[in-house]
């Protein structure tokens, strides 16, 4: 359960709207069920009071919206950013994609968000309501008379379980307690597991995963690092364009190039995996690059500092040779 309450956010949002600090608020709008919130702009106190929601299903990373939403608006947008969102926000500032003066960032502490598919796996389908109670999520389904309780631990999204940091790297104002970085988050555990497999096993693993790709582009379009004016995969002149994974090669290429393009820029927010309708663990590709960068070139966390030089636009004369990649890992 979030220590931050809806009221803390709505009262902050309304007061900032009323005193003219901001002209719009980027928040979560109520859905049909308890878990299907939609990121949305709120312009009036009335709208906020009626429709603004904050609960354990506010996983969406708002940073990317600020690229476009700050353009067509007079004044500032209030954005509620979780610690992980602030990394993406910083990275976008580094790449000059957002005008900082157009955003009022309210950092909100985060206790980890819930993953509806994990809940569904426990309670079964037909979820009619979910309420966030101190002892867990009370899930009512149409098949049960009594609600089932799912602990926050069991419901927590994978990406939140190995959250790299509860500390905001950017904000104008903070609501809730500031957390700490978590260097022991073991977010590379699964990557290491894959690395330890034989190439054949790895190939089989990824073939199984990537073959499910329907090339819906959700991973790309939700990614806060993918803000290109024109993506190479949409550009007929790029040589990589296609609208469907016509062959296994294209499945591989799409995901390799996508990960490569965000290598050194990916903040590891995990949105790609969250939105994949086929639940392909795409973050494992991004994390491989992050892990390699950390091992080869020293620790680097995209988005930690505005203006930092990404590892792929940097070098040292003593960098390891591509041929040493495998020696070094003792592979």
């Amino acid at each position, binding site marked *: 359960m979030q220590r931050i309450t809806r009221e803390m956010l709505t009262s902050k949002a309304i007061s900032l709207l009323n005193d003219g600090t901001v002209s719009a608020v980027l928040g979560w709008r109520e859905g049909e069920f308890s878990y299907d919130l939609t990121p949305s702009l709120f312009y009036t106190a009335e709208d906020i009071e009626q429709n603004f929601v904050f609960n354990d299903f506010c996983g969406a990373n708002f940073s990317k919206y600020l690229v476009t939403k700050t353009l067509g608006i007079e004044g500032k947008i209030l954005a509620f950013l979780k610690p992980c969102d602030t990394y993406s926000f910083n990275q976008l500032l580094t790449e000059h994609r957002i005008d900082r003066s157009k955003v009022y960032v309210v950092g909100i502490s985060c206790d980890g968000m819930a993953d509806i598919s994990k809940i569904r796996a426990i309670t079964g389908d037909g979820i009619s309501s979910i309420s966030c109670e101190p002892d867990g999520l009370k899930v009512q389904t149409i098949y049960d008379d009594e609600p089932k309780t799912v602990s926050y631990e069991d419901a927590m999204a994978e990406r939140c379980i190995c959250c790299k940091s509860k500390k905001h790297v950017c904000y104008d104002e903070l609501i809730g307690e500031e957390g700490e970085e978590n260097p022991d988050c073991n977010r590379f555990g699964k990557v290491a597991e894959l690395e330890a497999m034989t190439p054949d096993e790895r190939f089989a693993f990824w073939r199984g995963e990537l073959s499910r790709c329907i090339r819906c582009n959700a991973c790309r379009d939700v990614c806060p690092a993918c803000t290109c004016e024109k993506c190479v995969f949409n550009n007929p002149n*790029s040589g990589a364009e296609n609208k469907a994974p016509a062959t296994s090669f294209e499945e591989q290429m799409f995901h390799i190039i996508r990960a490569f393009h965000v290598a050194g820029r990916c903040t590891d927010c995990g949105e790609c995996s969250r939105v994949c309708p086929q639940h392909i663990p795409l973050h494992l590709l991004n994390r491989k690059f992050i892990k390699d960068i950390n091992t080869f070139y020293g620790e680097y966390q995209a988005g930690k500092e505005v203006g930092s030089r990404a590892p792929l636009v940097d070098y040292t004369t003593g960098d390891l040779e591509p041929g040493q990649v495998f020696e070094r890992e003792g592979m």
Partner: protein
Amino acid sequence: MQRIGVFVCWCGTNIAGTVDVKRVAEALKNEPGVVYSDNYQYMCSQAGQDMIKNAIHEYKLTGVVVCSCSPRMHETTFRKTAAAAGLNPYMVEIANIREQCSWVHKDMEAGTEKAIILGRAAIAKLNLNTPLTAGETPVTKRALVIGGGIAGIQTALDIADAGFKVDIVEKKPTIGGKMAQLDKTFPTLDCAACILTPKMVDVGQHENIRIFSYSEVTDVKGFVGNFDVTIKRKARFVKEDVCTGCGLCMEKCPMKKVPNEFNLGLDNRTAIYIPFAQAVPKVATIDPNYCIMKKTGKCGLCSTVCTVGAIDYNQQDEIIEEKYGAIVVATGFNPISMDKFDEYAYSQSKDVVTSLEFERLMNAAGPTQGTLLRPSDGKHPHTLVFVQCVGSRCEACAEKGKEYCSKICCMYTAKHAMLVRDKYPDTEVYVFYIDVRTPGKNFDEFYRRAVEEYGVHYIKGMVGKVAPEGDKLMVQASDLLDNKQLHIAADMVILAAAIEPDESARSLATMLTASMDTNDFFTEAHPKLRPVESPTAGIYLSGACQGPKDIPDTVAQAGAAASKVIGLLVKDKLTGNPCVAESNELMCNGCSACEKVCPYGAITYVDKEFRMPDRTTRVRRVAQVNPAVCQGCGACTVACPSGAMDLKGFATSQIMAEVDAICK
């Protein structure tokens, strides 16, 4: 669709011996875009070139593929041929079927197959070629020389003599640099001042040269032919155009205990000072760190005695901005600090000196008026030990010294030893060395004279320790040739300190976007073929800022840099290499990735208004490539995530077409 002509060269039997050229020409006839295909014994011959020209006219060719030797050999030739026939020279592609085919393969069948594939790749690329025209930019006919040592002086004089305006920026109050501090020069033993000061005067009087002494470059913008440079002229509290350099103020200045940097602190100067008698400009400078008036507001003696009223205690730094077509870096060197070499007791004994300090001690204008006296007690030294390679060639001790050879130490040490023995035959002189390196005209002869005529003791071996004991310096060393330990009670120890680039070089390099090596020496555009140019167009290198050098080499390089600058300034317009990067502004995100990888600083960003597809307008930050600065490496094209950046002549689509054609 292109109309391509394919010309397969036999190169006598060089190609035709392993490649069935007729079959190649025949096979390539059917490739898309090809309207003509033929073969000939020597395409590069006049007859071969005429064949191309005629075909261009006859078949209205829009492009030419020559299957022949390496493009590194004859690409230019065939481009000229095409141009002569009215075709854009960049509509020519070469398939390398000699060096990379016929010469490395023996089997006729395999060679022919490969030649066809290479030809096909060239055709595939050419199908996507577009005519390229090199851009032109005007040239500001003025050069900037940064650093006023012998390198800067020589470069400035040579450029000025050719009729171009030159400004010298020198951070010290006078030009002259290290050479002005030297006593004699090897291997001729002529007096440094005697050959340098006339040049300094020439510079001071040259109508085409301006000297900004006591000044620093603070910002550089622009590119080859069009640099905008900001120069800070530090306040010297003396009006430069009024001061006559009479020196009266120095006589009267009550603050006389300022360490004299010109003599490396071996004696003192006044707070208002002219570094040395032949300084150019010969203008006094007030050292605000010591001036009593500047520090307490009470004194003003110099102002009182100055008959021309040149003193201005309220003078402020002045910022000037000037345009230049070329910039020469001549920032020189310094001996490294001896702090980390305590085994030689440099900090413990005044009688352990560096070679540059020794120069001053031997110099008639130095603190001892040229009489060699020990700094500690002013006594005449009898036993002198020279230690070579102090901090040079330190492979194992990179954190202490430098890995490279400082190049000049062997020769100046021979000079010092010789001079000492010549002036004071009662002295014993030992030189400890790793190797004696004497490549250079008359260098080895010079060194042999030191050993043979002057009886200098050259000992191969390193000094392990110097320990002051009473008024002696106990030198512990090994003689590697005799394989024994030596103990010498010396009166003076002279350390041949390694030299390193001036500390201002690093920040300057950043301003100039000129690259440096790990030792902070400026990198040349090519180590052999372009030794006086920086990879950044319009930036030239003169003297020790590029690497350790002696005076002859420095002067030679200074002249070479000048001639390169003259070669640039003499042009009214610069024609660039048309194979440069180009940003598609509609696709550019403005993320700065390209800017960060560009080694030439060719990419800048502008905020530009765009009409969006939905008919709104939006201001976006987009990259722009300066074609005059871009050298066409293509690093930016890969750094760009959206593919907005492409390289003309080596476009993404062209390379992919080649890949496709090869893998067909």
